[in-house]
């Protein structure tokens, strides 16, 4: 046993640290209810079933293809499709009995109009969506999700595109899901970002298009928390969607880029239930952000054993030890990367020995960045004080959501998302 693991055990023995651990694992936003009892699921099942039946009577949006035909054309067998549906059911934290309903919901995806807006960003989330897993890209973008208006992807351009947007907004008034990628630059009267032939500011554009949306989904860290454009000194006054849009159901899917699996998950959930999924205090769906990177990390055993990468390329690195000491923010980052991974499940940052940068938490660009160990990141822990070293660390962890509560509680109440009393 090396010195560090010894120290950690010693620290763990300290009673206040144990209290810290208890606090962390019993705090509301760090807990996901995965079993709500038979009665609850029975009722939900019937509700979803009724909704799917109702959707079946509707015509696909814009004469979109029937998904079953598309799957067949692409040689995707029913068996593979159901395998995918059962994975999504698991991701949404529903019992396995919901799998046929989730499969049905996926088949109804062409009934859900989606409008996608790109504001101040790098287009990275659209790029990520383009390699969305499950049904392949052609189906997802063109056929399955009825992506009514996407400024980067769609074929029309300029005035024609603007006309299409108007049409989509009118035809699907109060029914469309509005996905927003990118931050909203508010500085200098919003002139750091204008959009469309009329030179409308991004803020005005967002307000106008969100007015008749059924719900707004902010995708990626820029749209949720302002993201990298909001990094100090925030020259463009960039803010997230939830800071400017109120009185609408709002869902945040942060991370840079946001994981396509979570975008698809939100849409399926909406089709299935007609509602936004259960959200945490930062308006993130709990099915994806209800646990920390650290909880399911493939290197977790090394953390528990006190085996750390001390510096890049050392023996620890060669043996896939825990990356905490070289700056991994997994213990304070809520996201499901460690389970769904990226690029159709091929890999994720921890898999290449890089550590998590906490990209789904607010202000990661200023506070969490790279090689600064969490202890030196000057983030105030809820238990008080700034963590100093890994040896003091002893799991007296903060939850990043905890910090967010103070800042964003107002926004979340205004957005009508106060679904769990006491949060």
């Amino acid at each position, binding site marked *: 046993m090396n010195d560090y693991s010894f120290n950690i055990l010693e620290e763990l023995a300290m009673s206040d640290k144990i209290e810290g651990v208890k606090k962390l694992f019993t705090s509301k936003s760090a807990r996901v209810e995965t079993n709500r009892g038979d009665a609850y699921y029975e009722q939900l099942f019937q509700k979803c079933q009724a909704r799917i039946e109702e959707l079946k009577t509707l015509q696909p949006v814009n004469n979109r293809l029937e998904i079953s035909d598309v799957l067949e054309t692409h040689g995707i067998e029913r068996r593979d499709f159901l395998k995918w549906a059962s994975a999504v059911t698991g991701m949404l934290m529903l019992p396995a009995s919901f799998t046929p309903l989730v499969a049905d919901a996926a088949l109804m995806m062409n009934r859900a109009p989606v409008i996608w807006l790109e504001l101040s960003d790098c287009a990275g989330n659209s790029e990520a969506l383009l390699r969305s897993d499950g049904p392949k890209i052609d189906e997802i973008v063109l056929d399955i999700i009825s992506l009514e208006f996407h400024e980067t992807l769609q074929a029309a351009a300029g005035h024609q595109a603007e006309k299409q947007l108007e049409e989509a907004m009118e035809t699907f008034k109060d029914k469309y899901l509005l996905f927003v990628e990118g931050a909203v630059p508010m500085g200098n009267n919003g002139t750091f970002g204008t959009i469309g032939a009329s030179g409308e500011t991004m803020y005005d554009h967002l307000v106008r298009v969100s007015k008749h949306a059924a719900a707004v989904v902010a995708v990626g860290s820029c749209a949720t928390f302002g993201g990298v454009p909001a990094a100090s000194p925030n020259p463009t006054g960039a803010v997230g969607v939830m800071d400017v849009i109120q009185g609408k159901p709002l869902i945040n899917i942060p991370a840079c880029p946001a994981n396509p699996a979570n975008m698809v998950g939100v849409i399926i959930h909406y089709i299935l239930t007609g509602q936004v999924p259960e959200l945490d205090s930062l308006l993130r769906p709990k099915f994806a952000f209800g646990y920390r990177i650290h909880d399911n990390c493939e290197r977790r055993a090394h953390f528990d054993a006190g085996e750390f990468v001390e510096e890049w390329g050392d023996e620890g690195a060669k043996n896939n030890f825990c990356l905490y000491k070289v700056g991994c923010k997994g213990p304070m980052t809520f996201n499901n990367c460690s389970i769904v991974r990226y*690029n159709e499940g091929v890999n994720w940052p921890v898999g290449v020995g890089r550590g998590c940068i906490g990209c789904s938490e607010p202000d990661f660009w200023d506070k969490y960045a790279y090689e600064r160990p969490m202890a030196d990141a000057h983030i105030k822990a809820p238990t008080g004080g700034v963590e100093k070293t890994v040896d003091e660390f002893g799991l007296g962890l903060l939850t990043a959501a905890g910090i967010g509560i103070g800042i964003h509680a107002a926004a979340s109440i205004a957005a009508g998302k106060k679904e769990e009393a006491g949060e």
Partner: protein
Amino acid sequence: MITKQLIEHIEGEASVYFDMDGKKVDFATVVFPHFRGMESFLEKKNALDALVITPRVCGICGHAHLMATVRALEDAYKNGGYEVIPTQKANTIREFTLVMEMIQNHFKWLYMVIMPELSKLIDKPFTQKPLKGAYASSLASKAIALFGGQWPHSSYMIVGGVTCDPTYMEILQATSFVEELVKFFEKECLGVSLENFLAFESCKDFQGVESDIATLEATLIDLDMQKKGFAHDRFLVLGTHNFSSIGKLKGTRTFHVDPKFVTTIQAYTPHEKTYAYNALYKDEYYETGSLARMISSNESIVKNMHRRYKDSAYSRVMARIFELALLLQHGRSILNTLDVTQDSVVKVEDIHNITAKGIGVVEAPRGPLVHEISLKNGLIESYKIITPTQFNIGSSTREKPTPVQKAMQGISKDEAEFIFRTFDVCSVCTTH
């Protein structure tokens, strides 16, 4: 009469103001209406934070930004008296992932920009599956993820090497993705084998072949694109790699280059505010990207094409397709040279002991990407990013047009919009 045309269907958004002379474009200026201020928020931060922040400049070439940052930092180490020499293994992995990023970019551009835009000019669809290029792109990004953890926005390159330590398993998986890509390219795009295509003497060899690329080539000729879209016939390649050969070319003459002669000036846009700066080399505008790289590395098919059709829209598009083939072959071959027993990263001095300037230059999909960094005790004093689109798609005066401005003159507005996209525009990079 001046008309404003919004250009979407590119990375981000841009507007072009056309000054028309009858039905022909007399002159055009380009506006990029977005601004984020990337350089300003890098200031005063720990220099290693740049490895996390700069890849987020761009959603399609973030990897090139990461590599430019790591090169700039390593150059600063060298200038500060602590030279860093990464192992061959680290260099090879960096190059492999960069090549894969170019491949995913070229596929997307081809199938999601060029073919649909060309369809509009001939008023009929090009391929039944306009998004099939995205399948190829996803294969390339999976190959990146094996070493980089994710794509877009990976940060696995660090000063001294890379964080990943691949085994033969990852190399095998990467090889399988590359082979699948080659198969896709041959079967779904080219209609001939990669080897045969690389042995083509000219694009006439496409005759008799039925494929997306053969149709594209024929359509470009039908539309006289070999006679349109000429820029200055001056090219610039600045990034040093095993797949490129640096130099400045005027016509076919090659000159020595040094990135220190790259400068920027505020773009000229009389009709609307822009946040863009134009990039120049020794006060002249140069075209960058695939065509420049192919001519600079003396690829015979592209040299022949250039001799006949100069720097026309045709040459620009076909050079990219040829580069795609070469990059696939290169990516395949460098995987075989990976020696997994070497170290992934070498030990380097603490960043806080570094006070120096550094410059990092890489070839991104659209051309040279330059990062200039100035460090004081490991903190960033200043950071400057110059992107390829700033070379190609600057907006200057009538007397001194940029490559894209020159290429859009004297043709119809519809053609000009297509030719604008042959440069592959990245608006998010341009204004960063």
